[in-house]
């Protein structure tokens, strides 16, 4: 993201979760609803969008960025590389919660506020 990471465009591009339309249906969520994504390693609010590069039911995708990194598996299994992909997650509707900007999100997490 060369346009500036403190900007809205970055949140729009990466503060999202791409979900299969069948999964959205199962969840009972409209497109562009805010959802809370939770894994064993953390939790974050992002906007659920319909996957354009699907179909891939059961598989969701958050682009690389602080939102994804709030839920990824930090375990490296002695390779130095955290396990960024293939992390089991749960998604629930969080209509009234806000998607934070990258800077807000990281600052708040670091201060232990969320």
């Amino acid at each position, binding site marked *: 993201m*060369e*346009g*500036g*990471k*403190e900007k809205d465009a970055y949140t729009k591009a990466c503060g999202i979760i791409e979900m299969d339309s069948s999964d959205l249906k199962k969840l009972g969520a409209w497109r562009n609803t805010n959802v809370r994504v939770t894994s064993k*390693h*953390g939790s974050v609010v992002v906007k659920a969008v319909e*996957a354009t*590069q*699907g*179909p*891939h039911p059961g*598989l969701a*995708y958050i682009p*690389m*960025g*602080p939102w994804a*990194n*709030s839920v*990824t*598996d*930090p375990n*490296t*299994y*002695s*390779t*130095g*590389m*955290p*396990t*960024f*992909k*293939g992390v089991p997650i749960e998604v629930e509707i969080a209509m009234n919660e806000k998607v934070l900007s*990258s*800077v807000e*999100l*990281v*600052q708040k*997490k*670091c*201060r232990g506020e969320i």
Partner: protein
Amino acid sequence: MTKTVTDVVCPFCGTLCDDLEVEVSDDGKTIVDVYNACAIGAEKFMHAQSKDRVKRPRMQQPDGSYKEVTYDEAVEYTAQMFAKARKPLMYGWSSTSCEAQSVGHEIAEKAGAIVDNTATVCHGTTLIAVQDVGIPSCTLGEIKNRADRIIFWGCNPTHAHPRHQSRYSIFPRGFFVNKGHKNRKVIVVDPRVTDTAKMADIHFQIEQGRDYELLSALRVAVRNEPLPDTVAGIPKEKIYEAAELLKSGRFGIIFFGMGVTQTLSKNHNIDEAIMLTKDMNEFTKFSIMAMRGHYNVTGSGQVLGWQFGYPYCVDLSRGFARYNPGETTSNDLLRRGEVDAVFVLGSDPGAHFPISSVKKISQLPSVCVDPHITPTSEISKLHVPVAFVGVEVGGNCYRMDNVPIDARKVVDPPEGVLTDTEFLTRVNKRLGELMGVA
């Protein structure tokens, strides 16, 4: 009136396009337009111009806000931090020139630091695999002129390296492939129907994380040995068909990306991909290449390699170079709380590291050198803005195929803003004084 700077190198992705033309104002201060670049490349040039750019270092205050300080104060803080730290981490190095990397390594030797680059979260596992089994590779020029079988495995260049396909891998007419894409067959392996997959002759929509199985199955198939009915969600007929297609080519190439390096099998996936390449050379000519992301992450590996012998996570804390991925890698060090200061240049771990590691950085003395405001700059104790390499200062960079290319300066940096080489040189000098060494 404006003037045009030609043969400009794009300092964004590992494709390192070197055919850009940039129109600048007569006084050489502002960029008017950028030609030939893809959207992300052009954005990088235009972003350098933004009005709200930070032009002086900023120090974090106790309440979390930032206060402007001078470059002299920033140099002093950074040098003091290195002098006091017992085991500082110096991370990043992928969005800067080889010259700056080299000065950084001098500091690391003095301070007994660990130098790690972004490979640690992208192609570090590739580097481990290469040390395990070697790598038969080639240049992008050879691919353009010869390759007629192209595999994209776990990568999506349409979005991450937008001009890769038009300049090198699918569309260009080459010396031995003079019909361009009509001469080439493209196979894409990805769990998603990516925009790259939509252009492929064959798309294997593999089950997430089953790359190792499918690679092994292809090795079996090229030998015409029996396979189970499906592997990784792909019917065996399809796998045999792909194997025949690959064998019938004159020059094949596997490009691979994060989809293979970041899943659970990590370096073993790459081992297997390289072994498949080796096997393929029994039948035809085959090569393999990592789709390196940042424009000069390859250069960081090169400079570390020739100076210390290892491509990333080099630990100099004992006075000699050690390398042990899993121990001397950034995320492991941060997780275990083994470093006592963090210096970041040319990357954004605040956005790219798991949040648990980011928290650790925010609790330590920390310096972030970056032209942009980033999540990292906003949790570091000190943010030092610098000139954009490849836009406001030249420098050497390595393309993803290990070809060195000199990036050019297009416009002047804003008045008084240092380049990263200048800042590092001043820190290095001051650190030498503090530690009583030259």
